[in-house]
């Protein structure tokens, strides 16, 4: 049984709600949405409206929904799903506040607000485009479902937290391609003008051949959500999701993926191996779950070029979130949008007057394509490659071993719980003092 809190859905019992929702979903699955999509009519089309469902109503999901609703297309939010009613309500309020000038874009009746682990299926069924922004551990099953239901998709990075999830996303990506479903992944630097301008110049040969890459996500502490006595262990981990690998993947996967992705993008391929070190230097208490507070990974590409990737959650230490691509003739410093030669002379400086709003741009482009019936975006593969690159980084720092990308991606390693329910045990449990076991290099092993 789920917790009392999640059991009621505006007065209905959880069981009634699920039953009713299933019927609703069943009915919709028979409706012409899918049929139309398969004929290349990219949205349900009633009055030219593109219907959107938000799955995962945290701060980022709410932001993404607002960005979708602020595109110039005729977009309507029609359904929302979250594990927690309070998240969903806060999100609905946030979206309403942001869309004060376009209230007609929010059409989410109570019956289309789905709470709990399974609501995503019903929410997805109601939409033409779905926004997948839960903690990343759920992304593979949500993506698979959205693809199976024939929907266009915006999904946040990372796209999984383990190799088993990666395999699922890869398989679904193939199906998405065959169904001509647009998939945009929130690796938003690909939609950021400054990065696109830098990349163009890289291709023009401005820095010659790449000789090394340095990437950073070094920052201070992040949020922690404290345990409350009424929480089951599952609810606690879901709410404090950043600190559990089955949900988050550790910060090298959840955040540093952005910078690792840029390295791969500019290099034009994924790394072959990763070796590195990491640990818990500062953040050591029970609230830090099982994740590290620092990682330093040496990624090696096929031709021997090295990408050094470092990420930290250390307060009051030097911070930097950036990428530097070093070539034979110069270096690209991405965050500053500048390209220098090896004497420090500026070869190019991004014009800061240009529009540089990546989070909005990724939605503008997706909805433009959907409205025009175009099939333009297949970001899932890129999302997989960036996520998997970050995962092998984590595996390298956790184990102290050299991890091969090819071996890891087919390993089937699975961090997910056997069952998603608030009364089910999550895959990691605290000891008597509330501490969680965490990886120890040399002891933690992935491959025999």
């Amino acid at each position, binding site marked *: 049984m789920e917790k009392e809190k999640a059991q009621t859905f505006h007065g209905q019992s959880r069981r009634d709600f699920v039953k009713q929702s299933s019927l609703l979903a069943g009915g919709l699955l028979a409706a012409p949405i899918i049929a139309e999509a398969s004929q290349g009519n990219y949205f349900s089309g009633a009055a030219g409206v593109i219907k959107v469902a938000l799955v995962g109503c945290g701060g980022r999901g709410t932001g993404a929904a607002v960005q979708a609703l602020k595109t110039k297309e005729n977009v309507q939010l029609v359904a929302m799903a979250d594990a927690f009613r309070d998240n969903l309500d806060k999100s609905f309020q946030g979206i309403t506040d942001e869309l004060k000038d376009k209230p007609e874009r929010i059409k989410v009746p109570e019956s289309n607000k789905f709470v709990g682990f399974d609501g995503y299926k019903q929410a997805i069924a109601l939409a033409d485009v779905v926004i997948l922004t839960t903690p990343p551990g759920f992304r593979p099953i949500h993506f698979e479902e959205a693809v199976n239901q024939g929907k266009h998709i915006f999904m946040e990075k990372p796209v999984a937290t383990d190799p088993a999830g990666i395999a699922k996303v890869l398989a679904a990506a193939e199906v998405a391609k065959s169904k001509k479903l647009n998939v945009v992944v929130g690796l938003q630097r690909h939609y950021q003008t400054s990065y696109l301008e830098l990349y163009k110049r890289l291709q023009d040969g401005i820095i010659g051949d790449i000789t090394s890459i340095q990437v950073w996500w070094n920052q201070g*502490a992040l949020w922690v959500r404290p345990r409350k006595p009424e929480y089951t262990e599952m609810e606690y981990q879901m709410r404090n999701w950043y600190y559990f690998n089955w949900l988050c993947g550790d910060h090298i996967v959840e955040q540093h993926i952005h910078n690792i992705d840029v390295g791969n993008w500019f290099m034009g391929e994924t790394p072959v191996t990763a070796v590195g070190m990491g640990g818990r230097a500062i953040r050591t208490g029970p609230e830090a779950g099982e994740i590290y507070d620092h990682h330093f990974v040496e990624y090696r590409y096929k031709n021997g070029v090295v990408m050094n990737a470092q990420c930290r959650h250390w307060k009051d230490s030097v911070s930097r979130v950036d990428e530097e691509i070093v070539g034979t003739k110069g270096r690209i410093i991405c965050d500053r949008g500048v390209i220098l030669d090896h004497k420090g002379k500026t070869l190019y400086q991004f014009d800061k007057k240009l529009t540089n709003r990546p989070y909005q741009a990724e939605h503008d482009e997706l909805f433009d394509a959907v409205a025009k019936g175009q099939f333009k975006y297949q970001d899932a593969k890129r999302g997989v490659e960036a996520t998997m690159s970050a995962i092998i980084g984590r595996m390298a720092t956790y184990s102290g071993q050299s991890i091969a990308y090819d071996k890891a991606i087919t390993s089937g390693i699975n961090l997910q719980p056997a069952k998603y329910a608030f009364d089910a045990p999550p895959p990691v449990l605290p000891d008597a003092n509330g501490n969680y076991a965490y990886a120890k290099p040399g002891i933690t092993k992935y491959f025999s």
Partner: protein
Amino acid sequence: MIKKTVTLVLGGIMAGTAAYSQAAPFEAYEQKIQGTDVTIKMVPIKGGEFLLGSPAGEKGRKADEGPQKKVTIDPFWMGAYEVTFDQYDLYADKDKDQAPLPDGMTRPSPPYIDLTLGMGKSGGYPANSMSQYGALMYCRWLYAKTGVFYRLPTEAEWEYACRAGAKTAYPFGNSDAQLKDYAWTAGNSGAVYHKVGELKPNAWGLYDMLGNVAEWTLDQYDEKAYAKAAAANPWNKPTGKTPRTVKGGNYDDTAENARCASRLQSDEAWNDRDPQIPKSKWWNADAPFVGFRLVRPVKQPTKAEAEQFFADVVDKFVGAR
């Protein structure tokens, strides 16, 4: 009623007893912060009269810098330096506040990424990227902490202090040739801000007024503000969350944008890359060039007046940026 109170707070023309006023001698002092070894250096700025804005012929002048207007300013203390992270984090980081206030004041949530962008934090770097709300809430916290009323300068107070008696484009003349000795701008900054107080101060002992981080003022931005400005202690009171007025130019600005009279209006776009909703009330994801410095009016408001000020200027515009 409210208007009158706020005018009194700013003008410092106090009738009756001021419970919180301190009979401090009008000289430079170090404000201690209880339970820490952090101090804030304040220097006295005598009252006087000056021409607000720039003359039509000034190089780089923009239309919103005029018409020039003669205004009088009451005396105040001003921070000799921009507020640093060493000072700001006592408020922003609860772990650093060894003697927290009993009423548990709201503190800034940590930003999604470290908004110093690697330019430096501890050891004297200016606090940056905070919303105007975040700057004002620091003043409120400092008032609660010290019993001394601090606030942002008005735009007129800021420019008066920056000029330090000069009528020229820069405090040292009309040519920007010496700017590098006084200010970190595009010409010498290396595209990053620097520790406060490394360059020369102006004639009144204020460092980094121009360049380094641009500074929040207490005024709603209005391009026609000077035409409407009161003759004494002008202040264009907040009427909305944006735009507010920023002065002084920053480390990435040209010399022309770092003149005494330069004005900049804040913009919602300063937080474009905050990916979350609700967006942070405390931080601007795309304005690493903004900071602030403190002012202490000589005539301190009563406790009730100070509370009224925070209610009118801060609580009414939560998240102002």
